[in-house]
């Protein structure tokens, strides 16, 4: 680690930078180019872990750890939860619908990047002070000193911000019930009145081999019954149709039993 003011880092760090930097860029590109949101999330998580390593390399040990715990651990998990809610398998269409949007985006991005690079190049940042002197009294202690003295108000405000955000998220996702929930009795009465499906819906699953909720139950003639699987799965198109398999199995079973009975008959 750099403990002295320098303009050049150690070659070990250089190797680490080039290898991990390349991976980070690939991860970032994958984030924006992957069709499925879950892949994007995983790519982003990878990039964030690499960034955590870079924080460590830059002497920001605390931040490096926080990055892994808070970002990669908590925030990315939150993302994944939402992705699950929306549907893991749902793939986005990468086809652009707004005319010229992609070209404009690329053009702006390219211009922005070139300008940023030019700006950094012009800044003439060659001198490194390093963090050795600052970290001498203990890195976390140094940070704590700053947070609780110089940045104490900002710190308190971020606390308030977090509380507000938590409450806001609850308010946003909370659904107010505008009418009393129907009782079991009312539900049963309604079912009788409508007369569509009096008994409970048939259970999903076929035999002991396929009793998962996404496998529809088979009717006597071997065709699957859509009624047996949940509405949500039907809407998402996530029903596993095993009817062909089941019919094959049935056929094979019958054949086997016939062979066996035949043999038994033959042995008699």
């Amino acid at each position, binding site marked *: 680690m750099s403990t002295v003011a320098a303009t050049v880092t150690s070659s070990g760090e250089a190797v680490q930078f080039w290898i991990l930097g390349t991976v980070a860029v690939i991860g970032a590109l994958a984030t924006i180019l992957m069709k499925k949101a879950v892949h994007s999330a995983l790519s982003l998580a990878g990039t964030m872990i690499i960034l955590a390593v870079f924080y460590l390399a830059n002497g920001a040990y605390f931040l490096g750890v926080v990055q892994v715990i808070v970002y990669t651990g908590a925030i990315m998990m939150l993302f994944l939860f939402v992705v699950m809610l929306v549907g893991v398998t749902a793939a986005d269409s990468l086809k652009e619908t*707004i005319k010229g*949007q992609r070209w*404009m*985006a690329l053009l*702006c*991005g390219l*211009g*922005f990047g070139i*300008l*940023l690079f*030019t*700006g950094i190049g*012009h800044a003439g940042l060659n001198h490194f002070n390093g963090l050795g002197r600052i970290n001498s009294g203990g890195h976390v202690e140094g940070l704590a000193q700053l947070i609780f003295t110089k940045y104490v108000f900002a710190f308190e405000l971020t606390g308030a911000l977090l509380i507000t955000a938590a409450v806001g998220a609850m308010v946003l996702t909370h659904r107010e019930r505008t009418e009393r929930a129907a009782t079991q009795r009312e539900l049963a009465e309604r079912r009788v009145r409508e007369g569509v499906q009096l008994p409970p819906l048939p259970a999903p699953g076929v035999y002991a081999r396929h009793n998962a909720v996404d496998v529809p139950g088979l009717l006597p003639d071997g065709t699957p019954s859509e009624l047996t699987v949940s509405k949500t799965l039907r809407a998402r198109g996530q029903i596993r149709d095993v009817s062909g398999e089941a019919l094959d199995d049935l056929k094979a079973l019958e054949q086997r039993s016939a062979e066996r009975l035949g043999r038994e008959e033959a042995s008699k």
Partner: protein
Amino acid sequence: MENLIALLIAAPLLGAVVLLCGGRRLDRTGHWIGTLLAAVSFGIGVALFADMLGRSADDRTLTQNLYTWIPVEGFQADMAFQLDQLSMTFVLLISGVGTLIHVYSIGYMEHDERRRRFFGYLNLFVAAMLLLVLADNFLLLYFGWEGVGLASYLLIGFWQHKPSAATAAKKAFLVNRVGDMGLSIAIMLMFTTFGTFAFGPVFGAVGEASEGMLTAIGLMLLLAACGKSAQVPLQSWLGDAMEGPTPVSALIHAATMVTAGVYLIVRSGAVFNAAPDAQLVVVVVGAVTLLFGAIVGCAKDDIKKALAGSTMSQIGYMILAAGLGPIGYVFAIMHLVTHGFFKAGLFLGAGSVMHGMNDEVDMRKYGALRKYMPVTFVTFGLGYLAIIGFPGLSGFFSKDMIIEAAFAKGGTEGWILGGVTLLGAGITAFYMTRVMLLTFFGEKRWQPDAQGHEPHPHESPKSMTIPMVILAFGSVFAGAFFEIGERFLTWLEPVTGYEHGNPPVSAMTVTAATMVMLLAGVGIAWGMYGRRPVPVLAPRGSFLTRAARRDLYQDDFNHVVLVRGGEHLTRSLVYVDHSLVDGVVNGTAASVGGLSGRLRKLQNGYARSYAVSMFGGTAILIAATLLMRAV
């Protein structure tokens, strides 16, 4: 005495208000009220006249200032009246002939259920006409001028159930409007030039104005006179105006209202005297109309339209005389008064004939009426003799004086004008003889009317014949009364001025020439209509006859030039409006709209689009920052 002037107007005005607002309860007495109030006005006029005669010639002008009409600083219009010899002449003519015609109308309109209204309109007319001649400023004159126009409109269209009458009224109103525009412009010009429009100050300040301005004012006044007096080019309404009841034709469209133009020119003599160019135009208009009306009068078979042509022609005489300047003013007014008598008499006679002939107006269906309507025949005959200028009757004196004055103008102009007036006298003799022969002589050519009723000509009731007799009396003696001892000249000269001029020929020669023309006209008419039987259906006639029957194509001319021209102008204006004006406006709107439409596409509602804009903006900001640092 001067306090009576307002009463002159107030009496018939009261009559108009009472009759028009009184409702049906006045239906049975309305005509008496109207006639009485007209007579009251005449009585006051006579009293004022007697008073005026009792004073010296320089002291005869009376003024009465009722109140300030429009009290605006720098724009003072008074409700003020001026009664001088000129106004007095008109007052007596209007209220006198007016009263007679009121009396006549009692009989003539007896069977009309809207008689009360008719008398209300007549009273309104008399009031407005008196206001016109009594006003002491041009604005008040304009008020009266519009008042008589309104009354004329109402009376021409009195039988509004006839589409022709309604159209004729509208036509008269519209054509008059052109003339009224001239009068209003003239008043505006006067106000900008002199700062006032009262007679005295304006005429007193004529010397200070430029001749160009005076010519402009004069021409505008002439335009007004042309409209009201049916002079070329605004003559077209008078023939159609005969759709009104005959007493109206007699009072308004023969004796009084149509002479308002002559009054206006004579009254504004000071302006015209200082603008010779305007005077020349006046003379030309008079001469042209004189011949125009006479030619039209020769060809018309409708007795009232023939008389209307004659009226036009006679007013042409007056306008011509008025255009001659101080030589002719007096004679213009004199002819106006005598014409008022004999033309009103002729019209009343024509009305009497129509009354007896089931309202038939075609002279070709009359004939031999002298035995059946003796009073009408005699009075009409006297009027006829007066208008053709039979020696000793009114028309002889007044017309002769105008012809002499025309010659007295001097130079080539004088010869031309003299020739025209002489020719006019000949044509007058021709067409009036024709009317006389067709109506009262020859064979019976009566035809049953549309309902199959055979006409039973009979003499009209007393209420109709008495006014005719009185007017015939005036037709015979007025001229001689005015001329002997030059009474009329002496009477009017203080107001209008007079100069004798230098006639290149003697008065006797002019009279002789007039007599020759008269005899020629009568002789030709006798040859054409007296010796031979007259066909009931009009023959095709020569080109000139056909043209004259169509009023010398005046309506066609108006239609082609004014109506079509106006339509073309309107259409091109509409085109310009649509293509150019609307083009600019709509083009601006369309280009703004198009631009907005394109800008609107930027607002496509997609958050990502907005994000691109933001991102691009950020890039530009960085570029700007870098550039600022680099510089």
